[in-house]
């Protein structure tokens, strides 16, 4: 919301400086986003008169002017076709900065003739687009006056961000009212602002216009007054200057009046050319598919939820949002109908959202205009039309009833302190509220002014008094602190995440944060996405991720393209499945697992066992019983079918998936070479059983363990883990560990077989093993292995 300082002062009688006003605005909740004085940058330009004009001896298109800018004649070379003796324009002396050309003027020689400055066009001064000639001012413009002073440009433009609750401040008057309440001046009576003797409906004897509302929900009230015999010319300077200053283009006085009142009072209006209407006007619901060409030149297709203003033939207004092109006023308009209606905020918001159409009117109506201001709004509009366009007013039609509801709040002034934290004397609170337009009776029943739709409870009144009194005055009060040292607050899930995050980083992985959404194609190999956005920013960010790997694969690909040799990324975040959001850790290892080196030789890519090592290390960090996990298959179609697996606690609970990513998945990311990956499912991790801090007693075995090696020939397809488990189970009392240390195929091993070598650790109890005992255990080991088709190698 923009306005100028002089505009504000029409409503606010104040001695306050610009700085004080700006500071106060922000302090009371009307955040100033910018202040700009358009005259400041043009201060060096002056009103000047061309005394004489003679042809340039060296150039046909140039003239040599003698210019008086208040300090006597100066020679100026000028190329403007309209430059001539007697013209009064705007002169820039050497040293003046020309904003439109981004240059600073200096004394220059142009085709052999000295030029002491420049006569300027509107474009050069950034006052308009015109560059066909130099500015022409009225002949009586005072020579030598700084141009900004003459043109009224020294009027700072203040830009204020209005929060959605403050419709009343979508008009300059509301802002003035707030400032007056904050002690910055006195609010000028509205009639005085508009130079009206009394603020009352303008009486007229022509027949009242035929308007009605058939949609009391969308348009509860439709007030209208007609004026016949108007002349629609150019707006008065004060109005067009104000509109121009805030960036609105003056169009014609009738249109400008509606725009001006909208900004001045937050009261949108609409003016119809009666000659273009057939029959009366009615506020009704649109018919499905009904169309209207709006004033922005676009055609909108309407539906039956939308309120429109229509005559017997067509729709002329998307009610409260934008008028129609057909019945808009033009310079030939003579008879007008002024609409001052109340549109329901919810309806406006829904219609505006559906049509994707914003306008100054919508912004105001959807926040809720003052329902008690229809008569005044219409009176001011008619007054302005009569004053600037002439004509004869009609009687007024008041169709429907504006929803004026008297709202009162039982308020306890102590709430300022008990909620707002600031003790304010009740009399002071009463004064603040009254200056804002509230009435306060002796029993502290506070009546809300009709323009403050946002205020409906005690807390709102506390806000009003605190913001006006000064939120900076609220003293800080420490929160009560529980005695003693702060208690731990993290949940087991949070602690798990933290351990995994720091564990992964400690293992040399870099944590990334990638988008929660991805493309359908990226989601497909991971089972597809259960959640697809209806309004994605792009097709690439459409589906909620079913896995963390796509985001990491894409990041890995970007890194490799940037020249990274080895990428080790991880992320902790959610997968979005149909039933729940599941906390997950993803790891992607791409590029070189080992760089080439003088010790190890050639570089090596990451392999599936790098992934397995990460998976197990992270599972250990998560406190999962790594020793008891089973490696199983079914990693999924995104994975290499022969080099991937799942780690499970029991046959059903999958704690992690690991291995090589399927080459087809890898290729989809434009990645070269093998990629290893891990996904850990945090919500599947077994919880830590709470047993307090005490550890079991320390009891190391009295005797040293014995190690024995066994080599077995087994069928090639036998999973090594099966043999290890079988051997481990051969004598649960004696065998404490089994470790596979060699796998061999080739010379001495038949086709279809492989040799697996195991180191078995035997732990004696109270006495050392005898040779017989050791032999018995070895026999059990061989027998257990035999059940899997394993034969002890000789």
């Amino acid at each position: 919301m923009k306005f100028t300082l002089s505009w504000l002062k029409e409503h606010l009688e104040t001695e306050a400086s610009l700085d004080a006003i700006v500071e106060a605005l922000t302090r009371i909740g009307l955040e100033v986003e910018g202040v700009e004085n358009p005259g400041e940058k043009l201060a060096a330009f002056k009103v000047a008169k061309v005394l004489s004009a003679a042809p340039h001896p060296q150039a046909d298109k140039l003239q040599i002017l003698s210019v008086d800018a208040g300090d006597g004649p100066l020679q100026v070379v000028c190329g403007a076709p309209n430059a001539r003796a007697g013209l009064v324009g705007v002169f820039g002396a050497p040293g003046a900065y020309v904003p439109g050309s981004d240059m600073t003027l200096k004394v220059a020689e142009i085709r052999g003739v000295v030029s002491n400055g420049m006569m300027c066009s509107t474009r050069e001064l950034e006052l308009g687009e015109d560059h066909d000639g130099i500015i022409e001012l009225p002949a009586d413009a005072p020579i030598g006056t700084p141009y900004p002073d003459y043109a009224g440009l020294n009027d700072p433009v203040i830009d204020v961000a209005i929060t959605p609750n403050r419709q009343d401040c979508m008009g300059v008057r509301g802002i003035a009212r707030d400032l007056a309440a904050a002690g910055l001046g006195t609010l000028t009576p509205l009639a005085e602002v508009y130079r009206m003797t009394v603020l009352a409906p303008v009486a007229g004897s022509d027949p009242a216009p035929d308007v009605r509302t058939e949609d009391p929900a969308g348009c509860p009230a439709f007030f209208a007054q007609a004026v016949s015999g108007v002349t629609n010319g150019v707006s008065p300077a004060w109005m067009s200057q104000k509109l121009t200053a805030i960036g609105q283009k003056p169009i014609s006085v009738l249109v400008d009046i509606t725009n001006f009142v909208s900004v001045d009072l937050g009261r949108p209006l609409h003016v119809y050319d009666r000659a273009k209407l057939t029959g009366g006007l009615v506020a009704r619901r649109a018919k499905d598919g009904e169309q209207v060409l709006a004033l922005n030149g676009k055609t909108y297709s309407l539906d039956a939820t939308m309120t429109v203003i229509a005559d017997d033939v067509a729709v002329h207004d998307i009610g409260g949002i934008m008028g129609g092109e057909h019945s808009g006023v033009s310079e030939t308009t003579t008879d007008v109908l002024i609409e001052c209606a109340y549109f329901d905020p919810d309806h406006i918001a829904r219609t505006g959202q559906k049509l994707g159409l914003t306008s100054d009117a919508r912004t105001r109506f959807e926040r809720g205009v003052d329902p008690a201001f229809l008569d005044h709004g219409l009176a001011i509009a008619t007054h302005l039309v009569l004053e600037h366009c002439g004509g004869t007013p009609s009687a007024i039609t008041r169709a429907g009833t504006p929803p004026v509801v008297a709202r009162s709040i039982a308020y306890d002034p102590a709430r300022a302190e008990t909620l707002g934290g600031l003790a304010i004397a009740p009399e002071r609170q009463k004064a603040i509220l009254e200056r804002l337009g509230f009435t306060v009776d002796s029993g502290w029943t506070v009546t809300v002014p009709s323009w403050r739709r946002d205020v409906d409870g005690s807390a709102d009144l506390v806000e009003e008094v605190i913001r006006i009194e000064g939120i900076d005055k609220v003293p800080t009060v420490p929160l009560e602190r529980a005695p003693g040292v702060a208690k731990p607050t993290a949940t087991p899930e949070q602690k798990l995440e933290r351990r995994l995050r720091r564990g992964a980083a400690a293992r040399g992985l870099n944590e990334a944060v990638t988008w929660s959404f991805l493309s359908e194609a990226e989601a497909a190999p991971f089972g597809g996405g259960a959640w697809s956005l209806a309004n994605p920013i792009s097709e690439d960010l459409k589906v909620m991720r079913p896995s963390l790997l796509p985001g990491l694969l894409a990041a890995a690909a970007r890194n490799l393209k940037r020249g990274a040799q080895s990428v080790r990324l991880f992320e902790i975040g959610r997968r979005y499945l149909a039933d729940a959001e599941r906390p997950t850790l993803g790891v992607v290892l791409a590029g070189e697992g080992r760089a080439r080196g003088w010790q190890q030789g050639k570089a090596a890519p990451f392999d599936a066992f790098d992934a397995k090592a990460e998976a197990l290390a992270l599972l250990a960090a998560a406190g999962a019983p790594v020793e008891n996990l089973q490696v199983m298959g079914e990693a999924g179609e995104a994975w290499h079918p022969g080099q991937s697996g799942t780690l499970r606690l029991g046959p059903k609970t999958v704690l992690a998936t690991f291995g090589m990513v399927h080459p087809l998945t890898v290729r989809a990311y434009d990645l070269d070479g093998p990629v290893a990956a891990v996904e850990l499912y945090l919500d599947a991790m077994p919880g830590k059983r709470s047993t307090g801090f005490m550890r079991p007693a320390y009891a190391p075995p009295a005797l040293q363990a014995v190690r024995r090696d066994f080599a077995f020939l087994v069928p090639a397809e036998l999973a090594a883990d099966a043999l290890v488990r079988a051997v481990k189970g051969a004598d649960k009392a004696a065998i404490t560990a089994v470790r596979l240390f060699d796998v061999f195929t080739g010379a001495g091993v038949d086709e279809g077989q492989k040799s697996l070598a195991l180191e078995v650790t035997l732990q004696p109890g109270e006495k050392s093993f005898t040779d017989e005992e050791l032999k018995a255990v070895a026999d059990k080991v061989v027998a257990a292995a035999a059940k899997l088709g394993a034969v002890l190698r000789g």
Partner: protein
Amino acid sequence: MTDLDHMRDNLLAAIDASGGLDALDTVRVGALGKQGSVTGLLKTLGSMSPEERQAQGPQIHALREAVTAAIANKKIALDRADLDARLARETLDMTLPADGVQMGSIHPVSQVMDELAEIFADLGFAVATGPEIEDDWHNFTALNIPESHPARAMHDTFYFPEGAEGERKMLLRTHTSPVQIRTMLNQKPPIRIIAPGRTYRSDSDATHTPMFHQVEGLVIDKGITLGHLKWTLETFLKAFFERDDVVLRLRPSYFPFTEPSAEVDVGYTMEKGKRVIGGSDGWMEVLGSGMVHPKVIAACGLDPDEWQGFAFGCGIDRLAMLKYGMDDLRPFFDGDIRWLKHYGFSALDVPTLSGGVGA
């Protein structure tokens, strides 16, 4: 010089002259072996008269001890020389590179979330979480943002397609505030929580990404006022930036779910062309806050006449940028390892109150 002296000198000289263990052993066998010269002398002791033995015994034994000791010393010296020679052969170029250790890193967003948890734990706040795929009621309605409220349009919400009749409209949460609602519904006051997490808005430019991180704070208790809110935010920001000159400015504002509402600016000073938090050369907006709206408290089944409190919300990415100096939000979500290593944190940089939360 007696014969014994002569013999000793010869033997010691031979020992000294031994160039290696083999030569030394030859000398040893020659002197102390079964047929050795010293052994031979010892053997003569048995046939001597007691007087002779009295006179010769100590000398012969002394000779044997001297030779034995000399051999032992020589052996140590030769061993050492051997070892030195081997070590000399084993010399490596110690300037050769060792295998590089991969340095992992923690993302700044995670680090800042841990910092927040640490600071707020000291103030008695637990960390709460909630779903990112939310329903319309928790994200808007319960927060006093009814349908068609302009604030809804302001939020640039990502929606999911509407399902069958009667289902609640699902969306991506536009703020962490629905966690307030879920907490109040599931937990009896007094409540003190922060709720960090991912949030989403359909917005994308240099300072906005469609996904970002927010932290919500909520206190519900008896007798909580705007003064407590001010203190909490001031205490938090001072602890977070680890500066005592952090200055706050509250500006009255509007959020549908708080009343009164305030936006909070924090003062900064310019240092080397960058804005540094502290002092008050200028102001930067860092959070939104206010007293929880009575309608929100009532929507959660609590009596607003009995319970009141405050809430605040703050961008975590922005906090990270202000503290650690990143000036572009987009690389946060790019996974560029160069950026991650530059702005990331060591696994060992665990924020603690005793060590300072910053790293």
